[in-house]
């Protein structure tokens, strides 16, 4: 070895550079705990607010689509202009009979859905969405039964109610008698969670429903159709639409999609939820960006030292990138954990925010994007930093 020190020509490889700068970046983050908490708060706030909005919107969507989703119906014949699960001009028997003659139709049944007042023991009243389904198929009949059987609807004056509304309906139990639309009915079963934004669903055999609602025997809210085995639902929908030009015919999936489009585009709900979700993300971005930016400004001398010693702009970008990723991943995990606890804590049939897997994945993606944008803004500040400042 020479007596004098020699130039050092070795340099780290690609991964070693990431490791070195990443470790420094993480240690700098955890050294300034106040700033760490502040930045994570921004990410957590954005995650919780964004997911709560999405979860509530999904819940709203679920409530509006639950009947079509669960009715075990292949094709729906609805009044013209139908865009959500709501009746319009009644359909008639001649349309029902024509539907039954269309090739590929295995069965077609009428369905009645109508709001009716339930008289309470205390003299008050509560509305229910009474569904008339026809025996013995009971197409569009009750699901999620927690007490009783669908066949119990064959008993005289039998109605299946929603379990979550029992208290509201005056302490309703199996065998309880109530006056529904001026007609005495008996509770023979209970469903769980069938609470749309309209009044809770109650189910009865169609003959009874016609007596209660005074709906003529040849008038129906919807016609529900089952496809014969091997018949394409889309093809069947086309045939039915040709046979029934004065109606709107949709497959189950088309009807679900139509309700979604209606909620998102035809009401202000999509705009409202979208705006608040966007605001959550914006607040998160601003908080993280300000925090990372101020962290850079506060530690300018340290970054100057790193530059003076030989760290390149690429090295500093790696440091900020790793910090951004840690903020995004840790903040998202905390936020999603809080969101999950919140959903479990408030879960009930009236309000059930839904946290779908795709929302969790999008959250990670968006938060990583937000934190990366923040780190790029901080990097712009570092580009202006002259390493000579360490000698001043």
């Amino acid at each position, binding site marked *: 070895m020479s007596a*004098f020190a020699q*130039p*050092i020509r070795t340099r780290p490889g690609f991964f070693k550079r990431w490791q070195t700068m990443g470790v420094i970046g993480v240690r700098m983050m955890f050294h300034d705990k106040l700033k760490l908490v502040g930045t994570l708060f921004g990410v957590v706030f954005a995650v919780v607010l964004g997911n709560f909005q999405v979860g509530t919107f999904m819940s709203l969507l679920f409530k509006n689509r639950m009947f079509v989703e669960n009715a075990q119906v292949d094709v729906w014949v609805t009044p013209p202009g139908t865009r959500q699960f709501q009746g319009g001009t009644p359909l008639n028997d001649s349309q029902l009979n024509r539907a039954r003659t269309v090739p590929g139709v295995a069965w077609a049944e009428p369905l009645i859905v109508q709001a009716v007042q339930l008289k309470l023991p205390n003299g008050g009243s509560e509305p229910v969405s009474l569904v008339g389904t026809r025996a013995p198929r009971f197409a569009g009949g009750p699901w999620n039964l927690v007490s009783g059987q669908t066949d119990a609807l064959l008993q005289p004056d039998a109605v299946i109610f929603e379990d979550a509304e029992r208290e509201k309906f005056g302490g309703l139990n199996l065998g309880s008698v109530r006056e529904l639309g001026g007609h005495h009915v008996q509770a023979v079963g209970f469903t769980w969670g069938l609470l749309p934004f309209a009044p809770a669903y109650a189910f009865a055999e169609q003959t009874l429903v016609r007596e209660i609602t005074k709906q003529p025997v040849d008038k129906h809210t919807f016609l529900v159709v089952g496809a014969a085995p091997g018949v394409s639902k889309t093809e069947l929908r086309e045939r039915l639409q040709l046979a029934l030009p004065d109606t709107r015919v949709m497959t189950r999936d088309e009807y679900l999609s139509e309700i979604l489009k209606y909620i998102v585009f035809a009401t202000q709900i999509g705009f409202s939820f979208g705006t608040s979700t966007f605001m959550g993300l914006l607040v998160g971005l601003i908080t993280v960006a300000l925090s990372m930016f101020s962290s850079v400004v506060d530690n300018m001398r340290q970054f100057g030292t790193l530059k003076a010693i030989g760290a390149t702009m690429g090295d500093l970008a790696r440091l900020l990138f790793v910090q951004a990723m840690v903020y995004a991943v840790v903040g998202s995990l905390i936020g999603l954990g809080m969101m999950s606890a919140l959903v479990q804590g408030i879960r009930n049939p009236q309000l059930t925010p839904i946290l779908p897997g795709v929302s969790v994945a999008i959250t990670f993606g968006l938060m990583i994007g937000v934190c990366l944008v923040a780190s790029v803004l901080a990097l712009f500040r570092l580009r202006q930093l002259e390493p000579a400042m*360490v*000698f001043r």
Partner: protein
Amino acid sequence: MSDQPAVVLKGLTKTYGTGALAFQALKGIDLTVPQGEFMMLVGPSGSGKTTLLSILGCVLTPTSGEAFLFGEPLHGRKESELPDLRLSYIGFIFQGNNLLPALNLEDNVAFPLELRGKSRSEALTEAREVLSAVGLADKMKRHPDDLSGGQRQRVAVARAVAGRPPLILADEPTAALDAETGQQVTQLLKTLSTERGHTVVVVTHDNRIFHYADRTVHIEDGLLVRPPENH
């Protein structure tokens, strides 16, 4: 490289700003520093010594003239080439020590070694050796905030000499220290640089440490001047 002087400056100038606001900090510096020399650069505030140190440290480019480090030209370099030159040639000791408070002492010394391509374990081994050499073997896991000013400056010395870069640049290394600690740190730097074959350029106001220098170079108003007769 062994025959080359550590530093050669020819007609070096540096001007900040342009037009009426232009200020010429260096007005034509000629200087040669042989390898292994322990040189002190002294002068009053505003004389240009920090500017000269910044050019030697490859953190600032000269306006005109020529500058060589171990025969390698610094003038005409792109800014993007300078970090690599710093890693190859220079260890820094700053006035305020500039240790990273988030890292413990061994990591503070190890990370420039990792930037130079050493593995984590090699860097830590060398960092521990150098920290032992500066008398801080028992404090390697401590953070800079836990140390006295003198101890921090010893860590800064350890960080500068770790990896054995050929040139050590020290900017007022005793400015924040009391007289006795300043002497100890300078003695330490002198001893280590002699043992390990570093060339050292120290910018200082502190005349109590002048006697450690092999040579003292005076700068005033952007020009090198002859030292006062009584020095």
